[in-house]
């Protein structure tokens, strides 16, 4: 029912060649693929879309693409849905369709894109109306002269709500940054400063979620490319070991690290950080990753 569009630059499979940089993220890319081919959102041919999605993100170097991790995560989601579609389905309930959540997100995202259009138009219109350019400075009433209506009860209520993030409380982990590959590169390099080899799995923090894992792996690959480390895996699915690659070092030493990992080893990823608090990057909102 759908006529596949072959655009200039499209290959013979009819898969659209898209310029990934144009897209805000994986949902934007998915919407584009669906819209371009006039696909019924409620009956997405997951197999075809997955193929097209993978093709679109293939060959793009992670450092050239914002949110590379999120694109990969979406690819994983699509593959999972595709696999679930192959399973026998019991009944025709909405909940049974593995695509349902994706469809909901796509529709929601489509609405957001509509709102973006509205905001953009409003912003452009507003930008054509200029406010007064020069406002001479006038004496401002000192803050102290403004009657303050706040009561001690309010201050005290705020005091009771103060929560100090406890780094050792696994239910209260603070993440202050978006998942950036640069951070993971720092993590790997600093780990390899104190030990000469480490299991990839040890670089992962199960509480930080998939995106961190994907990014850590991408960072490992990138460092491999830069010849900053070596990777070794004895057999498929075996533990992946990462080795420091330093010309002055014996590349395969029998370091004590895997047997006796000390708590103060790998955690000191920023040994030069002077102030402690500064390292927290307090200018960023911190929230707990659930």
């Amino acid at each position, binding site marked *: 029912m759908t006529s596949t569009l072959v655009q200039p630059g499209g290959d013979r499979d009819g898969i659209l060649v898209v310029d990934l940089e144009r897209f805000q993220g994986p949902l934007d890319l998915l919407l584009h693929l669906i819209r371009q081919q006039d696909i019924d959102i409620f009956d997405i041919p997951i197999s075809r879309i997955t193929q097209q999605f993978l093709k679109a993100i293939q060959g793009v170097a992670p450092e050239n693409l914002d*949110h590379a991790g999120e694109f990969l995560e979406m690819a994983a989601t699509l593959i999972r849905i595709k696999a679930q579609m192959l399973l026998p389905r019991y009944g025709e309930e909405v909940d049974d369709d593995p695509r349902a959540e994706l469809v909901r997100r796509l529709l929601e995202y489509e*609405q957001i894109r*509509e709102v973006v259009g509205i905001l953009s138009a409003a912003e452009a219109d507003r930008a054509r109306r200029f406010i007064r350019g020069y406002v001479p400075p006038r004496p401002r009433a000192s803050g102290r002269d403004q009657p303050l209506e706040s009561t001690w009860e309010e201050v005290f209520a705020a005091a009771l709500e103060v929560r100090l993030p406890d780094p050792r409380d696994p239910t209260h982990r603070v993440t202050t940054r*978006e998942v950036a590959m640069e951070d993971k590169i720092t993590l790997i390099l600093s780990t390899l400063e104190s030990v000469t080899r480490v299991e990839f799995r040890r670089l992962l923090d199960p509480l930080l979620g998939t995106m961190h894992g994907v990014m850590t792996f991408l960072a490992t690959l990138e460092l491999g490319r830069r010849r900053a480390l070596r990777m070794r895996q004895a057999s498929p699915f075996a533990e992946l070991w990462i080795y420091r690659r330093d010309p002055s070092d014996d590349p395969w030493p029998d370091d004590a690290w895997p047997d006796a990992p000390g708590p103060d080893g790998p955690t000191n990823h920023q040994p030069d950080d002077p102030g402690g608090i500064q390292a927290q990057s307090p200018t960023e909102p911190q929230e707990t990753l659930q």
Partner: protein
Amino acid sequence: MNPAQIVEAVLFASDSPLRPEEISRADESLNEDSVEAALHQLRILYDESERAIQVVEVAEGYQIVTRAEFAPYLERFDSVPRPSRLSGPALETLAIIAYRQPIGRLEVEYIRGVSSAGVIRTLLDRELIEIVGRAEGLGRPLLYGTTRHFLEHFGFRTLDDLPRPEELPVILREPVSILPDEDDEQGGSDPDPSQEEMTLEAG
């Protein structure tokens, strides 16, 4: 000094939109109603005398701005400060926060499909959003909402100037699929994710 003159002087001297009750602080003779009346008078006066400036209602207040048709002349001047436009990610994040406020970062990121800490920081810096509270539950994540400056930046009077979710077209959605009882016409096994989940809830 008539009220319209006082209101004009105060609006002219202000660098941000003013609410009628704020304007009324200029003189004991003024109150919210007389300021509203004076504002009305001023708007008519500016319109009838074909002035290049006008009184607009924005961000829950009033402000004097140039008429849009004079923009081409003003854009030629370095001495005319121009507000910088927001990036695509910033607009997208603002759109979500505007409709879903109060909302936490993780929810924004799930809707956008990409991490958003950096863009949220930018919006906080530009005072387009602010922290409006903390959610209950694990870690009590921060919740964000739009500011009065957000309204000003986009020239909205209030948040109600944004279209309601049900007024937003959803291009991908086929007209028939809006009605759940017409599911069959879509070809039997098509799933129909529950409609109420698809609309944004204005808040």
